[in-house]
């Protein structure tokens, strides 16, 4: 595995080029001069919501779906989002020409294999958004790419047609069986890993899904790279809100910031069952009877 170290984030005023619906999701296209050149698969952006006097101060994080560094508008980027609260509600109402403050690219991107090994890309819901840039990068290295997309129902799948373009095979699962196999991505993942002899599993989706994917990958001797989604206040590493327990190369568990040390982590390094807790053996844990 070779590490893509990022060369810093920038803050730019983007302009809305278009918004469109895709099932239950929205796709937002923004001008973002300078960001495409820096963006790698798995990076995210933090968008200011509600304008400069907004009462919603915290930025909202979104995986980068596509970037385009040339063209009529200079640099542009796209994100895919679900409306889930005040911020995404505002984003869904954006019109062409409105300004959006963008900070990015943020986080550590997916690590790519040095050799052309087979890879499986697993996504839950809008977790497929970062998978297309990743698939392109993997294919450019000669890797075979197979995808597994899952969602609660058909309208919550994103990019199935597009996935057909980049993947050797695509397997779909839905909880309600509205399309593909009824069930979860982890029900079909073992078969796909075995069939493709995958060395690496990449995953993006809800924490529960990531935990199971990491287990399945480990059980089949594959590396996993998981994109986590933790609540973030700053997105740039200064506030310490987005932490989760991750085992370091030295074997010690630390509460690490998912915005700068992640959001991509090795699946076997995250202590999935201890997320949202401070494990007793974590570095700097409260001493019994102490603070």
């Amino acid at each position, binding site marked *: 595995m070779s590490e893509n170290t990022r060369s*810093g*984030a*920038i*803050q730019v005023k983007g302009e809305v080029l278009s918004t469109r619906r895709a099932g239950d999701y929205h796709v937002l296209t923004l001008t973002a001069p300078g960001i495409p050149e820096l963006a790698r698969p798995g990076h995210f952006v933090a968008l*200011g919501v509600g304008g400069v006097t*907004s*009462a*919603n*101060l*915290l*930025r909202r994080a979104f995986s980068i779906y596509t970037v385009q560094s040339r063209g009529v508008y200079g640099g542009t980027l796209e994100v895919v989002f679900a409306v889930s609260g005040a911020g995404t509600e505002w984003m869904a109402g954006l019109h062409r020409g409105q300004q959006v*403050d963008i*900070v990015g690219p943020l986080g550590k991107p997916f690590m790519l294999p040095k050799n052309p090994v087979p890879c499986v890309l697993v996504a839950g819901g809008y977790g497929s958004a970062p998978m297309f840039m990743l698939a392109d990068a993997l294919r450019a290295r000669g890797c075979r790419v197979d995808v597994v997309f899952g969602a609660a129902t058909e309208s919550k799948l994103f990019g199935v047609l597009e996935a057909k373009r980049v993947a050797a095979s695509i397997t779909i699962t839905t909880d309600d069986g509205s399309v593909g196999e009824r069930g979860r991505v982890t029900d079909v993942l073992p078969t796909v890993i075995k069939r493709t002899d995958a060395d690496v599993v990449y995953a993006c989706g809800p924490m529960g899904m990531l935990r199971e994917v990491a287990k399945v990958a480990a059980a089949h001797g594959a590396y996993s790279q998981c994109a986590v989604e*933790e*609540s973030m*206040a*700053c997105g*740039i*590493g*200064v*506030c*310490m*809100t*987005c*932490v*989760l327990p991750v085992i370091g190369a030295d074997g010690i568990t*630390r*509460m690490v910031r998912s915005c*700068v040390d992640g959001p991509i982590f090795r699946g076997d390094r995250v202590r999935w069952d201890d*997320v*949202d*807790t*401070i494990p007793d053996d*974590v*570095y*700097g*844990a*409260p001493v019994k009877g*102490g*603070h």
Partner: protein
Amino acid sequence: MTRAVITHSPRRTSAEALPRVDMSTSLARLELPSPVLTASGCAAAGRELDQFFDITTIGAVVTKSIMMNPRSGRPTPRMAETPSGMLNSIGLQGPGIDSFLDNDLEWLRQRGARAVVSIAGGSVDEYTRLAARLRQVSDIAAIEVNISCPNVESRGQVFACDPLAAAEVIASVRRNTAPGIPVLAKLSPDVTDIVAIAKAVVSAGADGLSMINTLLGMVIDTNTMRPALAGVTGGLSGPAIRPVAVRCIFQVHAQLPDVPILGMGGIRTGLDALEFVLAGASAVSVGTATFNDPSAPARVAHELAVALAERGFERFEDAIGYAHRTPEPHAAPGGVVAVHPVNPEDDIADGDIRGGVEG
């Protein structure tokens, strides 16, 4: 401090046409080229923000409160967004003083940024040891003492809420700090009488005051119908608390006009910062607004300079406490009013400032 004339209302001219304002200021013995700093816990140790603006240009980086030992902090969720603000319950996660000095402070030193080091402890002894440890290093501009911590030796009573405990911490830190390094006591607004706490820590040797820390708050998630934060309660910050901060600074400056104040609490724009300065702050910290706009400290400094120029100030320092002057007689024609010496002690009666809640 006397100013010749003041224009009645801000001149609406373009920023370029305005005269340059001397923005230098001082916090006790610390001279600063700019009055805008970061706020503890909102800028880590400056490195991340340096991507967005040159951190050597701001007044100083106030670092995240550091304790003796590494600390994992509280479980997540650690934050909840609130109207014009947020709640946080980080629990002072940090690497401990040794790692902080070797990595964070060293980086700031090499970068050439001024560093105000914030320290936090669970006992008077911990604060004392932190001060003693900091005495061994050079290149720190000042120490900010975060006393909004539970005292493990006093059933978790917060130091900042008890004048005696607060004074004891500050006296010990002052004794163990090199004489040239200012010690700032950071006050909590969650007290009945902030002036009393201010007086207690100043008597104990504080060279200046940082105010305000967050206010204790709580959010309940209406879906889970449980507290939104794992830590149940958290500290409220952001523009939502700004009027509380301005009030605290105004009250303390009226009583202790010679004690420099580093003001903070909801500053998002240059005009917000100006309120703090007019209330009596000699410098300001920008905290939560940095999460909204990572360039906020640099932007606020620029906007503040413009706001001062628009109001006819040539020196930043002339604006400190300017809201405490006596009411003006009728404005002279042309929007120019008569000259007034600014002397808050003489002008404002105690009762006016404390001004209890009425109605």
